[in-house]
């Protein structure tokens, strides 16, 4: 890798920077520092990414410097993204970059802040969500994860309900569902009651990962009839054995409408797996 990093062809050096990501931190460190100073922007771009994935001891400082002062926008973006992925990395640089004059850099920082815990990151994201700027709102929503999402669930729910831009509303719905709380699931089911939003919400509900199906099951168990009908529709669109098992349980629902919707959904599916457990 060291030899190839000296190749006269920039694309070859960029490949070497990518390859350096597979070395141990000790071996990679001098190579990636050198690559981060390469005259070609794509060598520096991949070096920034590799520094984030290898975990050099001074990765935070290297990436912060690249994210704030590299001459090339893609390098700044890659550094900001890698900075967000560093465990325990201080958020100051990303918070500052969230207001960078280059929109793509600001978006990368906002997206990265969603992975960072702490009040400072949450405050920057809260400001972006309240900015009224659909691009900043979308970037903040796209990266929300874990603790940051939990801290901002109220703001995200508000955007899912009221944002003027349909794309922002849909991003907010996806972010809510990614949190996986039962409350978020019932909120999205309720939003699906609006005919104009039904299809988008159902698409998002049907696409939730399998780990979130218990939250959808809780809607089927605990929520009012109109929300249970939405959950049945989402499970029907989703398909698969686990969804069919939940639909089979809905055949015992107190509401004839829910029972009918579940029966119709199962009637269009292959029932064998579902009925084997629930209605042998």
């Amino acid at each position: 890798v060291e030899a190839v990093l000296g190749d006269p062809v920039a694309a070859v050096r960029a490949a070497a920077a990518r390859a350096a990501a597979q070395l141990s931190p000790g071996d990679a460190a001098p190579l990636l520092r050198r690559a981060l100073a390469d005259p070609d922007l794509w060598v520096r771009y991949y070096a920034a990414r590799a520094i984030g994935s290898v975990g050099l001891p001074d990765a935070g400082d290297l990436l912060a410097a690249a994210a704030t002062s590299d001459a090339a926008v893609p390098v700044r973006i890659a550094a900001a993204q890698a900075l967000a992925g560093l465990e325990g990395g201080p958020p100051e640089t990303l918070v500052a970059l969230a207001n960078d004059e280059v929109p793509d850099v600001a978006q990368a920082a906002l997206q990265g802040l969603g992975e960072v815990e702490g009040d400072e990151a949450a405050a920057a994201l809260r400001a972006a969500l309240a900015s009224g700027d659909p691009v900043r709102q979308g970037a903040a929503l796209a990266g929300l994860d874990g603790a940051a999402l939990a801290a901002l669930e109220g703001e995200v729910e508000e955007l899912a309900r009221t944002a003027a831009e349909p794309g922002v509303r849909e991003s907010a719905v996806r972010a809510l569902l990614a949190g996986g709380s039962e409350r978020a699931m019932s909120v999205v089911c309720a939003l699906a009651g609006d005919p104009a939003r039904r299809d988008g919400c159902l698409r998002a509900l049907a696409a939730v990962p399998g780990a979130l199906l218990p939250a959808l099951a809780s809607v089927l168990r605990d929520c009012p009839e109109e929300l249970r009908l939405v959950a049945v529709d989402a499970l029907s669109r989703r398909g698969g054995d686990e969804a069919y098992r939940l639909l089979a349980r809905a055949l015992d629902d107190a509401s004839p409408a829910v029972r009918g919707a579940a029966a119709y959904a199962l009637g269009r599916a292959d029932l064998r797996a579902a009925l084997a457990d629930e209605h042998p």
Partner: protein
Amino acid sequence: VRERNLHRPGAGLLPEPPGFSAATFGLLRDIVAQRTGVFFDDAKRDLFADRISDAMAARGVPSALDYYYLLKYDPAADAAWAELADHLAVPETYFWRQAEQFQALTEVLMPRYAAQGRRGVRIWSAACCSGEEPLSIAMALAEGGWFERMTIDIMASDASPAMVARARGGLYGERALRALSPERRERFFRREGERWRIDGGLHARVRWSTANLLDAAEAGPLAVADVIFCRNVLIYFSDDAIRRVARLFAGRMPASGHLFLGTSESLTRLTSDFLLQEIGAAFVYVPNPGAAPA
């Protein structure tokens, strides 16, 4: 290092997942539509991914997001865009396609220009692909004897440098000649192995170039033509891109100009810059004198 950093595009530790994320698809789709006019809706996501993947592989770029940044920020991005145009090109065309439009040109419009005392006429094939359209125009004009009566400037362009290179080559397979009569084959081609070579004199009547229809600096000087053929390309464009192209044409072509589109294409739903007329057996758009100025 968080787990997420190991999965980032281009991180080098793990192979890229096939296809695009929804977010990356949106970024690339929008930047391609903005630059080229070609729009891929959600139903064509897989087709778009195939085309982009080929272009990425040719460049050795490991992730779609990296490729997006390359198109947007690389100092030599123009070359990458030209390569991408080659991958987005749809090379399906053939000689003498929609022949009623060539007849309208030679039997109605050219006599009209002659009656007006015009000494020269400019004709532009705006999405010439591998050259079948402008060469068909040249054949029709040759058959009508128009090259002996007027100075005719036939310009042909395409966004894809590879397509223009094929057009400049002048060599065609049997499939491209499927709508040509034996007489036209005999007159305008000679066999060269398994393929057909266009007559050199006819080929030399066309001036070839590369031009992006959404780039006024490239397409604007060509759009001053009296007659524009822009067929079977707007079907791949977004509505906004079609409006931009129509506005460019309307703003540059003479008030007496004529615009031929493909049979499945229409401007009437999208713009008031042109009016539709029936000329001979063909429909043709003419600039609308009542349209708002460009």
